[in-house]
């Protein structure tokens, strides 16, 4: 929604000249990675007092902190436009953090490019268009393992064990799958990197209750393997129910923080953010 003059295409939809399918919207804050530094301590992944915004626009995050530790599920909730996705992007290096830092396993990675964060072990599943629709399920998984140079066939087997339906459909273009199956492909793709931490942005938006339950089940299973999971959810009640840690963001700031249960029990939180 920025006002960049380069974004005006005058409503052109001429298929002869432009192709909008799969066009990117993300702008990495760093194209080339800078230095990292071992500082030690703290939770496994933490975006610490982050302040920043898109491009030259106003700050969207104000001194916002989110973190997740090993074996935990951390859930971020908050009203629309609060900056939840923005915070996730900031942690992933899609946005310039003007002050504050991002640390992974004690290492300061604030200046890394997103690609290098993937290499460092961060997996990210965006909210929408999170699969390669024209590629087969198997190719989707392969692309997940793009950065890996070792043999990843056993990881693929693990993913197939976790999501058996995908094994059945391995040679089918992912675009032909149902909504729930697509979400499984998306998570599977992220798992293929053998991430040390998994970040999910509203994995259940627009998903039917049964698929949502299934997804939460799978997420719990994944978490139980020891993989920390950081996710944004609007289906906040279910999400907080399974969360070890919950963050409520309002206007780019931490409004409430606590365990999932605490937040669920807080009447103020219930009223303002969970729909009563």
């Amino acid at each position, binding site marked *: *929604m920025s006002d960049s003059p380069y974004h005006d295409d005058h409503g052109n939809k001429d298929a002869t000249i432009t192709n909008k399918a799969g066009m990117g919207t993300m702008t990495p804050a760093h194209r080339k990675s800078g230095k990292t530094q071992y500082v030690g301590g703290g939770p496994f992944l933490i975006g610490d007092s982050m302040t920043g915004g898109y491009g030259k626009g106003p700050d969207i995050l104000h001194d916002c902190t989110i973190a997740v530790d090993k074996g935990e599920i951390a859930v971020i909730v908050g009203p*629309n436009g609060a900056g939840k996705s923005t915070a996730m992007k900031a942690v992933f290096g899609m946005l310039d953090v003007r002050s504050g830092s991002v640390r992974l396993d004690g290492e300061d990675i604030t200046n890394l490019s997103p690609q290098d964060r993937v290499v460092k072990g961060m997996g990210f599943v965006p*909210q929408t268009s999170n699969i390669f629709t024209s590629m087969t399920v198997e190719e989707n998984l392969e692309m997940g393992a793009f950065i890996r140079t070792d043999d990843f066939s056993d990881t693929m087997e693990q993913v197939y064990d976790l999501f058996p339906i995908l094994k059945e459909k391995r040679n089918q273009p992912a675009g032909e799958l149902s909504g729930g199956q697509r979400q499984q492909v998306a998570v599977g793709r992220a798992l293929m990197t053998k991430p040390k931490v998994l970040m999910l942005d509203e994995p259940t938006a*627009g*998903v*039917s209750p049964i698929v949502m339950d*299934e997804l939460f089940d799978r997420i*719990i299973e994944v978490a*139980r393997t020891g993989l920390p999971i950081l996710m944004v959810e609007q289906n906040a009640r279910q999400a907080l129910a399974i969360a070890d840690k919950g963050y409520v963001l309002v206007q780019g700031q931490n409004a409430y923080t606590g365990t999932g249960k605490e937040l669920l029990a807080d009447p103020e939180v219930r009223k303002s953010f969970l729909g*009563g």
Partner: protein
Amino acid sequence: MIVVEDVHKHFGGFHAVDGASLEIAKGSITGLIGPNGAGKTTLFNVIAGVLPPTSGKVTMDGEDITGLPPHELFHKGLLRTFQIAHEFSSMTCRENLMMVPGSQSGESLWNTWFGRKRIADEERALRAKADEVLEFLTIEHLADHKAGQVSGGQKKLLELGRTMMVDAKIVFLDEVGAGVNRTLLMTIADTILRLNKERGYTFVVIEHDMDFIGKICDPVICMAEGKVLAEGTLDEIKANEHVIEAYLGTGLKNKDKLEAGS
């Protein structure tokens, strides 16, 4: 009011809507639920004229409206909102509303050159009406803001506001709730109820959030695999085995284990 008779919509060999028949009563708020890929959006698109059906018939107040393009349906009082807000982003919120009414004389080129007086009068009336609607939606302070720069929820309100600029008969809402904060969603629900009561709009609502459906919808229709699976009040639907199996599910399996483990 709307009768859908045995509508099929095929994409190649795939039957997205496979013989759906349903009726929507005047003055009701009908909920449409069903698993992902059940064909709800596709059925919407067929009714709203975005997609031509492969076969079948849609009537509105007895008149055959099958395959009419959206802009003609609009003039018959059939409006829709979009799952993802489709605001006119470079225009102000007020302009977003003012552009809605059809048959404005200023939309004819001839009048823009030779009927300027008439246009000016009409514009004044339109503006007043738009401001009224903005007030109703409690966003009058945004009248001169570009619609592209208001928050997601406000965009959704704007979507609703557009339907209030003309005398809509029936409004189709596709997943108003997806990705919308639950508290805001309840505000929207109130607005829908108000429109239904005060203006007599008929609504058809696709939604996956049962709280929302429960608050406003009666009856509820559940689709699966392109067909209507069940129909009734929400409680009836919730009790329906098929619906549970295909759509609602029985809750988390792992929940207790997780808690036990930690």
